[in-house]
């Protein structure tokens, strides 16, 4: 890989060679880096046009007029060297790799390009920046590091996914970017070990991504795993161990406080008090349910790898084990990885492969038990503290709620009695054969295959938990599913340079088939703790389904540059997808990008001292999106809509059309314009990449919520709308070295404006985000506003007396007839004399005004420090958990703040306690909308590298120990667990319309992690 890349660059540099004049002195030498030859290095006599470049072995020969000049050695990806000749005839030079972004090589689809010649918008992250921070997935470590890419981690659930948005919400369907690992599409990258990754390249604009056509509208994330390099085997061993703890708990009432509030609420409604609340003083603290479910949880990771290569081959082999216990008891995650990547060259033929095997195991948090507490985290806040955790005499061993209270389950019982386990085995393989047909023309055949075997197992032990939860028979359900991608690609690549012209052309054909098949079964009544289906006696059920889709693609790319000054990249892709009807099956996706390296112009010389590098870029392109469900263009007749019939009451099998289908479904299109500049200052010590983009997604594929009156039970997919995202992205980095001290500062800034231009029939609105178990939605998505904008009834303080209630009237009629002193005054926004959902107004949206990340790495002698902050500003969050806990309408526990509820003696700004809530104080309103801005110290790491002299004696190449912390603190005014919501639901539209709604009953709080690690190389 690296070699191919070098050849490519070598070719691209030929154009700068020029002719020598006089014959006075001939200098010869070899240019190397870490003892390896570098071909294609540009060697120029300073202040002249005299120059050459190195050959395949890194050798050069240059004739200069005399022995007094200075030679400049430049090569992309390396720091330029200036060496005075001093009358020497042999000058061997060693170049140092330069990690600055402006001179790096980036991976683009089906190839690589130098940052210099790149005109699309591509963000690149190298392995060093990913140095594992104890975070278990790669995406989490990307948070805040890439401009224009928003990463929302959904809390601390071990092994959980995250939401990645490249340049804003562009679709109502899947907003996940396309993930390509070593050339193969995968559905997610959670299972990769961060230390296996050499680089992550994120293609953001249409020019960069268009080569992936139909699947690229949400951006493309290209992951390249580590490759071996020629030389002696290198062995790496990394290990760390850490502890995690919950960052935040919710302040709720203790037993006697709860009883006081509950009694007040019942008294105010004129309803009898609950028996269990009769004597508040005698109840004391009661059970602290949150303390019962959280734990300090260990995490550990081990990775061992070996890599190297010979003249005709390279190899890289690694394996790892990662184990993480959850901060919620009984939850955990572990992962085993094995990876092999090799390539072999013989003559014109090169064959290679990359194989990744992973096995992941989750013990998930138990789900809700059909009650209203939600998952154990939700139940722990709502469970009344009067109840006990354990009851040795009860079936299953747990106590729980009883009496006329809301059926919230004992969260500890949920965690212990239900065992939801998931295993996933993933095979990811890519094998290629590359044949050099003639010089500069290569044919490559590529087979990619991923297969994910999923296994779900949920066992529920028999129990009687309090009076409200009973499950006398044990339950077991198991399911297996298999998802596979099979991809074949043929590509022809042609590279040619003559004079100052440099061409790269690529043409290809690909066929990809995705299949899914699942099987499930469940039974109840396994005796004596048996946990296999055959032991079950009742509730026998089984099922299964299958899906398949095919994508056929033709693609091409043409890259041209002249003299490293004028750059052009054109892409074209034509995709055919089985997801569309015959007439709309194919889509064409072209793009064009132009760039101008101003700093390479002769006239630029005077400006170089101010701005050492300057490149302008502009691109335009069209991308497609087909990420919605299969088979949507034809209406189906689902079976098993069954009824009962006959004197002896038999099963009557039913089938009918449940939903509508649009046979004219067509491609969702994403049109994007990008202008950008790459700047370098102070000899490129400071670099800035700036981009402005407009991304317009039209013919959005959308499951339009139909009126209930259509009778459709499933919403049909139609092309129904347009969204525009406009944004500015800045990525800044600064490097400085002062004697023993070196440091690098980086920062990213992203501001994106999201707007729905058009939706459905025009006045179409999509409601989303029902924040509590019951209740109305918090967001509306409609034309003219961002996706998922909060539309809420506004509150206007508290009625302090009956006069104020009376005063709040229209034409002599009370606007809130059920209100009493202590109730909330709502704003009758439409002035119709009543408070209804029609009074909802725009009160903000879940998109931040801007998000940012900043941090630095510093090194002093053998010590190093890295620190990284990240945050958002200006976004709103609807706190659904607070709505539950502060409502005082239902018989469960309440938030601490309810102690401050309004009473005539203590007229506060917190509404009165009244259990039947006739004024709907607890309704969905702006009372529960909060600022979501935050600043988080994401990582802090201090390392020490043992002195080389010491290590050489024990034959160790390098050894570093470090101490690291994740999520040390978060500065925010948000009251919920975590302002960084990102409830991820696996690439569905779920969660797009309620992106800013915090569903307290399904969350998993964030963990703070401290860890100690060791990195060893032999």
């Amino acid at each position, binding site marked *: 890989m690296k070699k191919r890349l070098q050849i490519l660059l070598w070719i691209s540099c030929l154009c700068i060679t020029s002719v020598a004049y006089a014959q006075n002195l001939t200098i010869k030498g070899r240019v190397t880096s870490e003892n390896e030859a570098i071909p294609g290095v540009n060697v120029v006599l300073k202040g002249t046009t005299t120059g050459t470049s190195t050959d395949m072995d890194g050798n050069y020969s240059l004739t200069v007029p005399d022995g007094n000049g200075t030679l400049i050695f430049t090569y992309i990806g390396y720091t330029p060297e200036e060496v005075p000749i001093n009358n020497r005839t042999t000058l061997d030079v060693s170049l140092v790799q330069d990690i600055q972004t402006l001179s790096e090589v980036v991976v683009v689809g089906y190839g690589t390009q130098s940052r210099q010649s790149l005109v699309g918008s591509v963000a690149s992250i190298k392995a060093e920046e990913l140095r594992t921070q104890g975070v278990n997935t790669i995406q989490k470590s990307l948070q805040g590091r890439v401009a224009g890419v928003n990463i929302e981690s959904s809390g601390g659930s071990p092994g959980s996914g995250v939401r990645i948005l490249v340049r804003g919400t562009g679709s109502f369907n899947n907003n996940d970017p396309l993930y390509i690992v070593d050339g193969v599409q995968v559905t997610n990258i959670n299972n990769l070990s961060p230390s296996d990754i050499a680089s992550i390249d994120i293609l953001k604009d249409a020019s960069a991504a268009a080569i992936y056509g139909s699947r690229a509208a949400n951006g493309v994330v290209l992951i390249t795993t580590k490759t071996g390099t020629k030389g002696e085997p290198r062995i790496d061993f990394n290990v760390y161990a850490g502890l995690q703890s919950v960052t935040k708990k919710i302040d709720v009432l203790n037993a006697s406080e709860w009883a006081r509030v509950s009694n007040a609420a019942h008294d105010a409604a004129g309803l009898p008090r609950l028996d269990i609340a009769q004597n508040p003083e005698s109840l004391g603290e009661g059970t602290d349910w949150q303390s019962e479910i959280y734990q300090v949880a260990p995490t550990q990771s081990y990775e061992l790898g070996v890599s190297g290569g010979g003249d005709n081959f390279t190899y890289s082999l690694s394996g790892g084990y990662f184990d993480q216990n959850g901060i919620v008891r009984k939850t955990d995650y572990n992962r085993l990885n094995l990876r092999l990547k090799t390539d072999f060259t013989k003559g014109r033929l090169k064959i290679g492969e990359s194989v990744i095997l992973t096995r992941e195991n989750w013990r998930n948090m138990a789900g809700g038990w059909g009650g209203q507490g939600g998952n154990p985290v939700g139940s722990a806040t709502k469970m009344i503290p009067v109840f006990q955790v354990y009851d040795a005499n009860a079936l299953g061993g747990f106590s729980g709620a009883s009496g006329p209270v809301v059926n919230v389950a004992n969260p500890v019982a949920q965690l212990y009695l239900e065992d939801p386990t998931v295993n996933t085995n993933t095979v990811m393989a890519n094998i290629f054969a590359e044949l050099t047909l003639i010089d500069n023309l290569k044919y490559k055949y590529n087979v990619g295959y991923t297969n994910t075997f999923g296994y779900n197992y949920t066992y529920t032990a028999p129990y009687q938990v309090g009076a409200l939860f009973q499950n006398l028979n044990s339950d077991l359900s198991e399911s297996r599913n298999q998802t596979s991608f099979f991809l074949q690609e043929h590509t*022809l690549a042609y590279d040619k340079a003559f004079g100052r012209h440099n061409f790269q052309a690529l043409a290809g054909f690909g*066929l990809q088939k995705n299949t899914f098949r699942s099987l499930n079964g469940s039974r109840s009544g396994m005796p004596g703790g048996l946990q296999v289906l055959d032991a079950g006696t009742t509730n026998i059920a089984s099922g299964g389904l299958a899906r*398949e889709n095919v994508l056929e693609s033709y693609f091409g790319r043409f890259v041209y540059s002249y003299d490293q000054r004028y750059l052009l990249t054109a892409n074209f892709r034509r995709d055919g997808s089985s997801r569309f009807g015959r007439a709309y099956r194919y889509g064409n996706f072209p793009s064009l990008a132009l760039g101008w390296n101003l700093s390479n112009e002769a006239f630029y010389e005077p400006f170089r001292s101010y701005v050492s590098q300057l490149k302008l870029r502009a691109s335009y392109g069209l991308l497609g999106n087909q990420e919605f469900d299969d088979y949507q263009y034809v209406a189906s007749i*689902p079976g098993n*809509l069954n009824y009962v019939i006959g004197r002896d009451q038999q099963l009557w099998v039913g089938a009918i059309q449940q939903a509508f289908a649009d046979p004219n479904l067509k491609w969702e299109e994403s049109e994007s314009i990008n202008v950008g500049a790459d700047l370098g200052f102070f000899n490129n010590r400071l670099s800035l990449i700036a981009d402005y983009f407009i991304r317009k997604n039209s013919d959005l594929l959308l499951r339009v919520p139909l009126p209930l*009156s259509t009778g459709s039970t499933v919403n049909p997919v139609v092309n129904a709308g347009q969204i525009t995202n406009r944004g500015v992205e800045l990525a800044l980095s600064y490097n400085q070295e002062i004697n023993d001290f070196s440091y690098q500062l980086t920062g990213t800034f992203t501001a994106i404006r999201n707007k729905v231009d058009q939706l459905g029939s025009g006045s179409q609105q999509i409601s989303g985000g029902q924040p509590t178990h019951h209740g109305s939605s918090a967001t509306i998505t409609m034309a003219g506003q961002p996706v998922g904008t909060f539309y809420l009834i506004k509150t206007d303080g508290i009625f302090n007396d009956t006069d104020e209630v009376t005063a709040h009237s229209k034409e002599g009629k009370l606007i809130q007839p059920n209100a009493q002193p202590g109730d909330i005054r709502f704003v009758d926004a439409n002035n119709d004399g009543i408070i209804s959902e029609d009074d909802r107004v725009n009160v903000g949206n879940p998109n931040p005004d801007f998000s940012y990340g900043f941090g630095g790495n510093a090194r002093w002698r053998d010590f190093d420090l890295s620190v990284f902050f990240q945050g958002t500003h200006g976004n709103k969050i609807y706190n659904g958990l607070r709505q539950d806990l502060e409502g005082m309408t239902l018989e469960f526990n309440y938030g601490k703040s309810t102690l401050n509820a309004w009473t005539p003696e203590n007229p506060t700004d917190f509404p009165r306690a009244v259990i039947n809530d006739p004024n709907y104080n607890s309704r969905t309103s702006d009372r529960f909308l909060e600022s979501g801005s935050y600043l988080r110290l994401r990582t802090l790491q201090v390392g020490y590298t043992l002195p080389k002299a010491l290590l050489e004696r024990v034959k160790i190449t390098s050894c570093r120990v470090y101490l690291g912390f994740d999520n040390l603190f978060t500065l925010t005014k948000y009251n919920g667990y975590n302002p960084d919501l990102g409830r991820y639901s696996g690439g569905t539209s779920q969660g797009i319309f309620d992106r800013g709604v915090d569903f307290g009953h399904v969350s998993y709080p964030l963990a703070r992690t401290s860890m100690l690690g060791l990195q060893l190389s032999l």
Partner: protein
Amino acid sequence: MKKYIIISLITLSLAGCKKELEVVNPNVITTETFWKNDADFQSALAATYKVFRDVNNGYWGVRGVELTNGRGDDFFIRNDVQALYQLSTFTNTPSTGTPSSIFQGAYTGIFRANQIIENAQTAPISEESKKQYTAEAQFIRALNYFHLAINFGNVPIITTVPTDKSQYFQPSSPEAQVWQQIISDFTAAKEGLPESYDEKWVGRATKGAAIGYLGKAYLYNERWADAENEFKLLMSAPFQYDLRPNFADNFRPEFDNNEESVFEIQLQNVGGVQPWAGENANEALGVTTAQEFAPTEVAGWFEVSPTDTMFVEFEKEKTITGDYDPRMYASIVWDYPGAMYYNRPFKEFKLVFGYQSMIRKYQNWWNDNEQPNGNYISEINEKAMRFADVLLMYAEALTMQGKVVEATAPVNRVRDRANLAELPATYSQDEMMAEIRHQRMIELFREGHRFYDLKRWGLLEQEIKNSDKVGREFFDPARHAYFPIPQNELNTNPNIEQNPGW
């Protein structure tokens, strides 16, 4: 060389791939291959009837039963499921979930019935079959519109399957037009349906059911003479309807589809095992209502209770032997000597809401709990229309025309079965109406009629305010006589308007 390779690759792939992109859904059949024979129509009918028992959206699923009964002066719903508490205490809003579900369920039934009616016209099936399926679908459609009319008033009338996106957004029609549609459909169903079915098809809508509901529709429109004419048809041959001698039999699974049944919802544990699975093979084909209403002592969820207003009504008249009305024993349980409930003395149960009784009707109270199958479902068919109801509606239609003496006989049939003294033939119209109102309240408790009867009689406000129902102080007749058009409909349908009062 390059050209050849590209060309050959592309031609190869083109040849191979046109077919590759033709991927059919392996899980279901499509509209193109359906509606071809009797079996297709029969399965479509099953899928249309079934909505009535849907756990969330069905009129006789648990939420439907809670919605129809929950607002009566005879019923209390506890503060657990917020939507139910709100609607039962008259603090519901357009966003309250349950009315929205019932609204959706009715239209799901209508959409499916419309498919059957339309496709029957063109399908290659016999004329006899066409007539049968059309009439059956019209019955189901009319019944769904009936539920919409009495609960929501003005609603969209949709009688065709939309062929274009623009037809998804229909405006409301006035309630009077909805009634015209109901009467027209029931009339057509009456003509097209058979008087009875083979044993294997018992449970489908019959001519008698269509007549009963047509009469009921007339009754709700105070077309007394029309109503009388329909109900009268059911009193004699060819119809064989009669009261079950033992009232309580109607609420035991072994007496499903008995002689008193005019139309009932078929429930049995013969499908899947999961009550909340949604519409698929795992969906249980019973209802969870009994589990939800059972007391906590037997692991029920005690969502409802009879009010003491209801209790007092039951106590009003003793039998000729001086005992409580047998319908009181069959409908509720309270602390009387020897009272047993779920095979335990009633004394072991705690009355937690301050009312004196618990519900017995439609509970499987002879078992130890409501989970004999381990999955919360009850197999007692929900009686949509019983002959006792027909008799009382018949009597009402007569009485309202001044034919009080003629009304005495049907009322007495109901009273006789309850072992009450015969009514004298001397009642005034008002006295007879008062008797019919009393009889309907105790005969049909928990069968979803009380609130709608009170509305017909113009007594909603009076009876609710005079009761001990929680939330009675929030009752506003201008608002709560109907549910508002659900917010989910308003959010998605730009052509619909909210009902007056909301």
